[in-house]
């Protein structure tokens, strides 16, 4: 009975085949699972890139507006029948002149809703324009933009599309005259938010996010390093410091929305800081980033060899001098890497910003940390919830801009880490 078992032969062979099949099955399942996960990333990126393509260009119309003196108040050029000037200007490009009020309105609606104010502002800036012609290249409104980009099919039954056959024919006439162009959409990053997708841009959100990250960095970076240095190098081991440690780890996993509640009730409610401002947003984000920075800084401090500390102590440096002159500089690349990754995370954070009002409708970039502003992720949220079709592609484009910033920050962090690894 102690003879070797028959591991060869028919029955054992058949069983082994079954076992190998099971092995292949698990391998296949695993490959399927990871393909699914990576496929998800692929579909996400592909959707965004394809979705964002239309936002890269903007359909525009080149119109010459006759600034007739009789339509403008000579005392105050700010007052005038600019809507009429606008409609006449567009109508002049058309083969058939409108007859009804509804037709006039349709013609005015070809270009974006802000155009009459653009004309007014131009005249107010240069009153000598009165009596002369003003030529502007203005964005067309969303429905025509979709048509110009071929995103609205002309085969759709008229009752299911925004533009009537008559309107489409007018646009085709404008195109035939060569008045329609489709340049690269720089306005996407030079303009701020707008009600109209064709003039909405990200400048305000980018500036707002920049100010927020600035506040976040200025607060959390020094405070995080100070806290980490204290906990790692100076603090005695007792129940209080243990509590602080556990607390930091737990804080890192608190849902971000809870930080929003904290910001709303304490920063805005108790301290009376102004709502919707990068200051409040940055402070909330810095409270969220602080645990991350403390954790990475402690790890970086731990990685500094003991021998360096001993050598510095050996020449008579005080504990503070050892840390400030020797340990901290050596740990700095690691700290910076962790900080950049933490800031990148903060840049994408959305939920707490909603609670402190950073999803307001604001059409100008903030001039400082105390002015109401949006941020990139909240701008994405606002656009994602807007009904106009043109906002879909702009949301995709905004997401790509955000992901671009995140990727760039992570690339810098990886570069720093690699330089650090090469040195040691």
């Amino acid at each position, binding site marked *: 009975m*102690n003879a070797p*078992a028959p591991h060869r032969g028919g029955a054992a062979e058949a069983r082994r085949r079954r*076992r190998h099949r099971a092995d292949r099955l698990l391998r296949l399942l695993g490959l399927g699972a990871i393909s699914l996960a990576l496929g998800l990333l692929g579909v996400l990126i592909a959707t965004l890139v394809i979705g964002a393509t239309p936002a890269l260009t903007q359909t525009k119309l080149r119109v010459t507006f006759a600034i007739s003196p009789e339509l403008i108040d000579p005392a105050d050029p700010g007052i005038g029948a600019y809507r009429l000037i606008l409609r006449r200007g567009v109508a002049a490009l058309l083969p058939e002149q409108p007859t009804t009020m509804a037709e006039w309105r349709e013609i005015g609606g070809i270009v974006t809703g802000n155009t009459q104010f653009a004309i007014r502002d131009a005249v107010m800036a240069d009153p000598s324009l009165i009596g002369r012609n003003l030529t502007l290249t203005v964005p067309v409104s969303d429905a025509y933009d979709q048509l110009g980009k071929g995103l609205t099919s002309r085969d759709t039954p008229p009752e299911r599309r925004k533009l009537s056959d008559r309107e489409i024919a007018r646009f085709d006439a404008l195109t035939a005259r060569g008045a329609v162009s489709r340049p690269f959409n720089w306005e996407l990053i030079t303009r701020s938010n707008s009600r109209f997708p064709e003039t909405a841009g990200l400048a305000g959100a980018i500036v707002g996010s920049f100010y927020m990250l600035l506040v976040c960095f200025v607060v959390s970076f020094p405070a995080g390093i100070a806290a980490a240095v204290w906990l790692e190098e100076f603090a005695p081991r007792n129940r209080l410091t243990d509590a602080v440690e556990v607390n930091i780890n737990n804080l890192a996993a608190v849902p971000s929305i809870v930080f929003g509640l904290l910001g709303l009730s304490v920063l805005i409610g108790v301290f009376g800081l102004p709502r919707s401002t990068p200051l409040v947003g940055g402070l909330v984000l810095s409270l969220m980033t602080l645990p991350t920075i403390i954790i990475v800084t402690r790890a970086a401090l731990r990685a500094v060899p003991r021998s360096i500390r001993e050598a510095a102590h050996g020449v008579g440096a005080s504990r503070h001098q050892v840390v400030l002159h020797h340990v901290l500089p050596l740990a700095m690349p690691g700290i910076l890497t962790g900080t950049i990754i933490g800031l990148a995370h903060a840049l994408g954070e959305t939920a707490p910003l909603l609670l402190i009002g950073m999803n307001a409708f604001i059409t100008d970039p903030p001039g400082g940390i105390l002015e109401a502003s949006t941020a990139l992720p909240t701008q994405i949220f606002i656009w994602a919830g807007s009904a106009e079709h043109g906002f879909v592609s702009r949301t995709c484009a905004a997401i790509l801009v955000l992901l671009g910033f995140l990727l760039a920050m992570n690339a810098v962090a990886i570069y720093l880490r690699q330089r650090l690894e090469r040195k040691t």
Partner: protein
Amino acid sequence: MNQSFQTHVAPIGAAAAKISTRGVDVFYGPKQALFGVDLDIPRNQVTALIGPSGCGKSTFLRAINRMNDTIAGARVEGEILLDGENVYDPVLDVVELRARVGMVFQKPNPFPKSIFENVAYGPRIHGMARSRAELAEIVVRSLRRAGLFEEVKDRLDAPGTSLSGGQQQRLCIARAIATRPEVLLMDEPASALDPIATAVIEELIDELRANYTIVIVTHSMQQAARVSQRTAFFHLGRLIEDGPTAEIFSTPRRRQTEDYITGRSAAQRPGP
């Protein structure tokens, strides 16, 4: 049939050779760890592999049951014949090979399961028991063979990791023999154990010889002398010489072997 390959080996009957290796080279990435090893390992005997650290004896052992496959970048060339069949033949099933060639590791590595489940693992995966009773019988028999049964019979449900080091190693031996392999490879099985546990294991090895072909890697010359019938001496990735244990220890043919077993270091040795 393999006799024509034998060069500097004291001849053993070809029929008696359970394992024959021919020109085995092992590489770890760009580094070569074994150089052209030719060795015959006789059936139902204990063969000890000795040599200084890093000489390739463990590498050789792991080549026999293809455990080197699990190391990224490892590559084996040459032939290792188990009953005349090359174990590196692509059509050979490595699962079958390892069922036929059991292994006991240097550090006891019981699974984090009960004592019973540890021993039952092999029979279960290889489908060697048709019923729970049969499985229990295999487990009890293997534990008894490994000399552990009396110590653990009341707590077969206790975790294997709760045993002492020596008991854990005997549990691993029981686990290995539960699949009733033909060959048992032992990689310094007693190096992590105290002298008493070592003595128990050595006795066990001597008993197991009746049914198994055993190859044991050992650091201790005394252990090799005590448990083995044949000894092979490795140095710097080469097989220096092999033969009956008594002969190797009393009248080694090679200078390096003599230096090693008498305890002279390589540095003191005059140049060749």
